[in-house]
């Protein structure tokens, strides 16, 4: 209880609320603009928060992260273009409602579902954190090694796209973490005469490159309009209150979809786009009177939006308990927290538990801010999509590059960000998901350290003789071979293959 109170005090300490508000505004904007999203907003904000006290920085970063899902739903509802992939299912019923002149109704429902979904996810997080504490304390080197192994490999299996490419991206990330001082022997590896590489690949410029620069590069090369010619046909002045109350009218649906979002969030690396579609599919399949789905049914807005924001609370569970990111946004957040000297995982729960509550409060309040200001400013935000994409992309690029330099005032950071921007662009272009690479970059050092520590202290038996370690290992193996077994089985049954 004392920790909750201290967390609340830290969260309210000036200027945290101000920066959380600014973060939420940026998150709203990045969520709203198609092509951008939470990872890009966090990557750009990280260098800006570098000089701030950790509680202020966390409030700002979480503020941005929490506001993205509702921002994305505004463009999904008003212009039929999801702001982020996480809002794709919101277009199915959101835009038909706009065409019927019920944009206010849809936006109200989206805002209400987003805020309440975030609260649901955060409540689950608050329950799981104290329960998870004894589990985490039972962990030693082998368990951490196995958790990191599971984090990297399972993400490739559960994330979107080719598993093989996902695994390759993950191992590439691990290989990058071998650059610089070996965490065990202190030997220098792959520095090629550069002093800059002594400390390895710096996570912040790498993240700026992988998300902000590669994304802006792609926008510049593709050069398409943000809205693909969609027209805004919104009447935003009426029905907002009815929309807000509609969530209470469909409370049971809201609870089920929030639970789906939270569970999806807990699975490392899966993310909101999956939660969004699963919740929508669940709403359609479990509703008896469903002929209006796809033509402007408010339940088609409530379901995806509630799961979308609830997943943020869920994604925080593995991030905080084990230091293993639950989503791409939390992977970037993890990098930012490390920059501020905060190492998520069991040490955080013991040494600095108030940080967890700062995260929880920030997540809830940022959603409320996004809901209120998103509703007020939706009409004006919609006009931003008329801006040419190259204009937005060039501004993001300039800001990202200057931001990369601002982190440590080192010129090589800019070069590193640029190089990772190009790597990210090509990975994306050729169908490699960037998520395993980012997570491997974050977990790589721990992976190597815990391997050597286990081998020194317990020998190879340490990995397989301890129950938790063995269970995690077997789960990893099972998860890795499952899709291939499934494919073989469906082949035998004459199912569709490749």
């Amino acid at each position, binding site marked *: 209880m004392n920790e909750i109170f201290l967390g609340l005090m830290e969260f309210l300490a000036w200027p945290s609320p101000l920066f959380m508000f600014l973060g939420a505004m940026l998150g709203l904007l990045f969520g709203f603009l198609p092509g951008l999203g939470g990872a890009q907003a966090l990557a750009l904000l990280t260098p800006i928060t570098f000089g701030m006290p950790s509680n202020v920085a966390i409030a700002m970063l979480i503020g941005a992260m929490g506001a993205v899902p509702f921002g994305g739903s505004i463009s999904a509802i008003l212009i039929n273009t999801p702001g982020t992939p996480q809002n794709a299912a919101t277009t199915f019923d959101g835009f038909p409602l706009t065409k019927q002149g019920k944009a206010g109704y849809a936006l109200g429902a989206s805002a209400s579902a987003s805020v309440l979904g975030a609260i649901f996810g955060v409540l689950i997080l608050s329950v799981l954190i104290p329960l998870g504490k004894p589990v985490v304390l039972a962990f030693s080197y082998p368990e951490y090694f196995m958790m990191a192994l599971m984090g990297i490999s399972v993400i490739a299996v559960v994330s979107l796209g080719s598993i*093989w490419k996902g695994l390759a991206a993950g191992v590439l990330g691990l*290989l990058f973490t071998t650059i610089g001082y070996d965490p065990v022997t202190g030997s220098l*590896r*792959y520095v090629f005469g550069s002093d800059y590489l002594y400390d390895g690949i710096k996570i912040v410029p790498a993240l700026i490159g992988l998300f902000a620069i590669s994304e802006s*590069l792609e926008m510049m090369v593709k050069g398409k309009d943000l809205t693909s010619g969609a027209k805004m046909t919104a009447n935003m002045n009426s029905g907002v209150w009815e929309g807000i109350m509609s969530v209470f009218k469909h409370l049971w649906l809201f609870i089920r979809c929030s639970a789906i979002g939270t569970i999806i969030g807990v699975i490392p690396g899966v993310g909101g786009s999956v939660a969004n579609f699963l919740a929508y599919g669940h709403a359609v399949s479990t509703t008896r009177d469903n002929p209006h789905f796809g033509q402007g049914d408010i339940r088609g807005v409530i379901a995806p939006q509630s799961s979308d924001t609830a997943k943020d609370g869920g994604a925080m569970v593995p991030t905080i308990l084990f230091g293993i990111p639950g989503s791409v946004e939390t992977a970037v957040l993890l990098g930012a927290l490390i920059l501020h000297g905060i190492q998520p995982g069991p040490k955080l729960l013991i040494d600095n538990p108030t940080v967890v509550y700062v995260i929880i409060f920030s997540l809830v309040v940022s959603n409320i801010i996004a809901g209120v200001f998103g509703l007020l400013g939706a009409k004006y935000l919609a006009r931003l999509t008329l801006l040419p994409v*190259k204009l937005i992309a060039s501004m993001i*690029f300039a800001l990202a*590059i200057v931001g990369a330099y601002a982190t440590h*005032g080192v010129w090589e950071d800019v070069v590193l960000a640029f190089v990772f921007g190009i790597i990210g662009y090509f990975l994306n272009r050729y169908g490699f998901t960037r998520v395993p690479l980012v997570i491997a970059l974050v977990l790589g050092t721990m992976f190597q350290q815990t391997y050597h520590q286990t081998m020194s202290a317990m020998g190879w038996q340490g990995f397989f003789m301890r129950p938790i370690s063995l269970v995690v290992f077997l789960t990893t193996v099972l998860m890795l071979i499952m899709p291939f077994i499934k*494919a073989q089985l469906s082949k035998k049954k004459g199912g569709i293959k490749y």
Partner: protein
Amino acid sequence: MKLKGKGIFELALVAFCVLFFIISFDYNPRARFAPAVFSAVLFLLASVLFLGDNVPFFQKRFKFMNEKGFFTDVQKKEDDLSLKENNSTVVNENVKLIRILLWLAGFIVALRFITYLITVPVWLLFFTKIEGDRKWRESTYMALGMGIFDFVLFDLFLHVTF
């Protein structure tokens, strides 16, 4: 066998891990262990990808590498769209990519020698005018706006020394 962009990228990955694997033997056995293992695993993964995507003999045998993640079918496969593009689109995209990369590299080089307060607005002015095909007035407003924003954020607020 004619290599396309994806094949070249996969081949570059193979070459990258071979290089890392060979260099790893310069280090003592403990320091070498992680990079040697990672580069060997990546070599295996990237080689299968390269062969499976580019050599017809292996395309039939390496179908397992096309296995999708659990949730891929849940949403539209945007990645696949790029694969359906025809050759002329790819060539145009590559030409555009090289041009854009030159612009970006120019920005970084200029930033190295000139203060960001000049580099950011000047680069934005010319980039949006020439690449974005905007009117001079629009480009100027945007360049000045961004320059002022950067000044307020990085100089006045964050006190970053460039």
